[in-house]
């Protein structure tokens, strides 16, 4: 029995003028897994993820989400489908509170006439929800949910961003270099969060440069090279230096039958 992938991309192409950022690449994300996407600078790993979430539109190829073909024209559409993105640059508004940030663009309004006519926000409900979600991920060391995000440390901000994604994601979460700007201890906290989110059953696409982080949390590693999916490997069967060698072209990828194109559980 084969498991239906959450995301299935086939023959995706994206050109910018004469530059081909994605060159007939495939992509698969399966339920419940953390899929790391690694690649050298300029390999196009960000481009392919952007094509999946609608930040850029692919010129050719097909993207299916849970088997249905999709054509997102903006990340907002992807978001409506329950796809959340955690950006490297965090995408939080510094002056707004934690609760306001969690509900950015999907605020709750009060029931009744205050909400429908006077458009009043239901601050109580939003604060409660935000507090619950942060507590769920063990992040309530934060003193007040009404605290401005700019008063938080980098790790706490990343925590808020991950909590927001985890709270609203119904399909999967894309994380773009979530630990790149963080210190060692804060990175550790974010890696724990990634595992907590996976434990909730939400699959994650993790783009990262950091091999130790990738090898620690990923179930499968998608190695991107020259705009293509070069190989998908099992991090338990390959060393970090081999992965880097494959990524940079210094080593041939293992033969297809030894790769991990589908998760072990699904095969």
């Amino acid at each position, binding site marked *: 029995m084969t498991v239906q992938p959450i995301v299935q991309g086939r023959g995706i192409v994206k050109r910018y003028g004469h530059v081909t950022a994605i060159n007939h690449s495939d992509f698969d994300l399966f339920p419940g897994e953390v899929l790391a996407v690694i690649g050298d600078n300029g390999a196009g790993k960000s481009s392919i993820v952007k094509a999946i979430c609608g930040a850029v539109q692919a010129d050719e190829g097909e993207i299916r989400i849970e088997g249905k073909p999709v054509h997102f024209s903006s*990340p*907002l559409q992807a*978001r409506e489908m329950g796809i959340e*993105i955690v*950006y490297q*640059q*965090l*995408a*939080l*508004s*510094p*002056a*707004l509170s934690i609760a*306001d*940030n969690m509900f*950015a*663009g*999907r*605020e709750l*309004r009060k029931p009744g006439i205050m909400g429908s006519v*006077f*458009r*009043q*926000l239901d601050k109580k409900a939003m604060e409660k929800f935000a507090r619950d979600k942060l507590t769920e991920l063990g992040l309530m*060391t934060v*003193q007040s949910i009404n605290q*401005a995000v*700019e*008063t*938080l*440390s*980098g*790790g*706490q901000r990343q925590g808020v961003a991950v909590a*927001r994604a985890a709270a609203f994601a119904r399909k999967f979460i894309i994380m773009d270099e979530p630990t790149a700007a963080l210190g*060692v*201890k*804060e990175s*550790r*906290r974010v890696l724990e969060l990634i595992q907590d989110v996976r434990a909730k059953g939400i699959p994650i696409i993790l783009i990262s440069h950091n091999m*130790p*982080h990738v*090898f*620690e*949390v990923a*179930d499968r590693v998608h190695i991107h090279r020259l705009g293509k999916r070069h190989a998908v490997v099992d*991090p*338990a069967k390959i*060393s*970090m230096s081999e992965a880097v060698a494959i990524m940079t072209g210094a080593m041939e990828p293992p033969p297809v039958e030894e790769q991990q194109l589908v998760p072990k559980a699904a095969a």
Partner: protein
Amino acid sequence: MSESASKGQDYESSLSGANQQVAEFEKREGFVYKLQHALHTNPALVPLIVLVLSIIVFGLLLGSKFFSPFALTLILQQVQIVGIVAAAQSLVILTAGIDLSVGAIMVMSSVVMGQFTFRYGIPPGIAVVCGLAVGTGIGAINGLLVTRMKLPPFIVTLGMWQIVLAANFLYSANETIRSQEIAEKAPILQFFGNVIQIGSARLTFGAIFMLILFAVLTYALTQTAWGRHVYAVGDDKEAAELSGMEANKVLVSVYALSGLICAFAGWALIGRIGSVSPTSGQLANIESITAVVIGGISLFGGRGSVLGSLFGALIVGVFTLGLRLLGADAQWTYLLIGVLIIAAVSVDQWIRKVSG
């Protein structure tokens, strides 16, 4: 999995001996810190304190000549136009923009209201609606140029200021519509000049409109999603977009609303001066920016409260009337306002230094 996990953690094994806390909060005490925090959460506090202090000081110096219902409501009358325009300016400045065309939009709208009534014989009520629509339209064009053409707001509104002002002179042929004529044929144009007299206190409809406008905007900015988005876009437009707000829609709505409010200011201007004059209101730009800055709204966007601008406009009004009653040279007013502007921005910079 477990094998790979240990592989990943190898280099961090020394961490186990380290302090396990992740970024705890530093508890900061002390009056200065608390003050900074209070100002950070209530940015309109500084101008409110300055306003109350200046009323007290002038009250002590001038006694009942200043501290009377008549004089205090006179200040409201004198600041109503600048106050309304400052409300529009506040919205734009909150989005990290600036609107140099506010004065021009105001005058243009009042001229449209007057000329439509008297040149084309359109019923004055409809002419007023046309004037409001023209103001909103010009504001919306500003917003579209800022978002679609990606031009800096300063440049867009600098250009629009000249265009609208010139159009205003060309269209009106530099012609003033006299007050008596308006009072006879189209009193609705002078609607905001109506007065509620309570004892010696004189509240014009224009002053009341200004107060209601600030109340409505405060509600919209603090209690609705749109308000949150205005702050977020002003704070960091890219972050607002990435977190799912439609930043460009918010910006266009802000510029269009600014235009509408300026058009209301144009209507109130007719009530204030009685006539429709294409040469009036030339200082509204700079006076509105002054009120906003003294009111503690950051020119870098995203910080401040629209109420601050009301207090800023009132502070200028208090200084103007107080110094005039003291018999001081009018230049003292400008000098002191200049000092206030620089002081206000210094306070803003200090408040921004939030320690995380």
